[in-house]
């Protein structure tokens, strides 16, 4: 097939324009985090980087105890992502390798229904429940209520359904129990899905805002997203955008790194790239 060069030109042209427009705000924000105070206020605005990145980072770091906030966010997101993967693998296994059992459809529907019950629909009672448990302002409240995953259960169920039944029969005849089968056959097969799901759930939890806002009350339990709000508030009189943007940089870097690390698995998992 001949390559239509005129068409190719327009594709590149449109994509380049789109890329510049879409990425400009990120570029400008990152650029801002490198400017000194006076450069940040200069008019017309500066579009080229300055040399104050590290000073700004350390100022943002000290203003809201960024180290602690980053640790909290990373700990919470990692825990929730791993727990979701673990729980949904177990559930998907139950739905695929045990034939029919009583209540199977009901339980399946119940796990899927979680999609219809986002936090705002149950926020007041969930908050009160945390008070009953005395979980306010603890890691328990920030992690455990998020442990169920409809997405994960569906994803792993879909994968397990493609595993031939004869494999399970063979394992059984060889004397392997269900858990052994799960551990040595199914889990290794799920590597791609585990990678994709870890990325999705880590980013989701890292970006969560409303729940940490209401359930945490002391600064040492806050997360990075709330740190941004605190930075904005502490700089409210005359927004020191260079400091705020250094904080923003710290808040967006970890999920980006996770995205880069898992990008390949993720793209393969979504069929965007051939497995090598």
């Amino acid at each position, binding site marked *: 097939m001949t390559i239509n060069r005129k068409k190719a030109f327009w594709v590149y042209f449109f994509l380049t324009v789109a890329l510049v427009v879409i990425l400009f705000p990120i570029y400008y924000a990152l650029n801002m985090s490198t400017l000194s105070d006076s450069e940040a206020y200069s008019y017309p*605005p500066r579009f080229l980087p300055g040399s104050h990145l590290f000073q700004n980072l350390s100022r943002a770091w000290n203003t809201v105890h960024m180290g602690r906030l980053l640790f909290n966010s990373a700990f919470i997101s990692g825990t929730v992502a791993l727990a979701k993967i673990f729980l949904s693998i177990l559930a998907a296994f*139950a739905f695929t390798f045990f034939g029919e059992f009583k209540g199977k459809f009901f339980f399946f529907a119940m796990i899927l229904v979680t999609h219809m*019950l986002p936090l*705002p*629909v149950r926020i*007041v009672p969930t908050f009160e429940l945390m008070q009953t448990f005395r979980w306010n302002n603890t890691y328990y409240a920030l992690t455990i209520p998020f442990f169920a995953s409809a997405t994960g259960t569906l994803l792993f169920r879909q994968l397990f359904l493609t595993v031939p039944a004869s494999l399970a029969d063979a394992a059984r005849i060889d004397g392997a129990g*269900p858990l052994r089968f799960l551990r040595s056959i199914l889990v290794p097969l799920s590597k791609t899905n585990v990678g994709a799901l870890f990325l999705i759930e880590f980013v989701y939890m890292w970006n969560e*805002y409303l729940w940490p806002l209401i359930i945490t009350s002391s600064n040492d339990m806050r997360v990075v997203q709330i740190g941004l709000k605190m930075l904005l508030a502490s700089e409210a009189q005359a927004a020191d955008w260079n400091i705020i943007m250094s904080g923003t940089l710290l808040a*967006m870097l970890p999920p980006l790194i996770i995205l880069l690390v898992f990008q390949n698995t993720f793209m393969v998992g979504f069929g965007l790239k051939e497995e090598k």
Partner: protein
Amino acid sequence: MQRRFPNRWMPYLLLLPSLVVVVVFLVIPSIQSVYLSFFRMSPFGDKMFFVQWQNFQNLLTSKDYLGSLWVTLVFAVCVVGLGLSLSMLLAVLLNQKLRGLYFYRTLLIWTYALSPAVAGVIWALIFSPSSGPFNYFLKLLNISPINWMTTPSVAVLIIILAATWKMLGYNIIFFLAGLQAVPVELLEAASIDGATAVRKFFRITVPLLSPTTFFLLIMNMLYAFFQVFGLIDVMTKGGPGNATEVLVYKLYKDGFVHFNTGLAAAQSVLLFVFVAVLTVFQFRFTEKKVFYS
């Protein structure tokens, strides 16, 4: 399906952890939301009075609440419509068999990792009335600067823009995945028959993408209704006035700033009803049009 492992209790044991979490933290609190919505807290917060439908009556006749509902609907329709059409177009361009597009794909997908709050802070900087680059560009074009912090309609436009921008990466990922299912032979056959690119897009690509579009329609709507909270809290706090006070923000204010538990619970119930109705409506509406291969 045949029975593979003959253990009777094992499946229940495997399901137990997920079900405990779902029941304790999702199902029971949702039911309690319904229960609480029929009560009102005494001024000192020590007693609850049964008030029947009064919370709902108050909400559905209050100008504030109906205004908030209207803003939410406008916001959701714009974010979903704008976001889906823009990202579908970009995904189709990114899916062309041309050299170097992997690089574009990678860069565009990165916005997926940004949080609503981060998106909010970044756009607040871009549109900053005094020193932001947007007003600077306007000035270069001889247009008078805008101050979205004091102009309600502009504030709504800007949160729509910021919220749409934040979802582009997510939508593009799913559209790209959906496009892998569109057979290249079909498009080539259409080309040979003399179909233009525009015609191929609307007659072949859009219909074949419809399952993906449908999934994204629901995910984007849930996002527009619920997940924009961080973006709004960082950018406008519902202001100016209450121009950008979407339902979830009003719910937060009534429940956790004014501690009006019953009223907040009633809003939770209404939110659920709206989303359920919209979802059912979408199922009905798209049922005939969605093409499953």
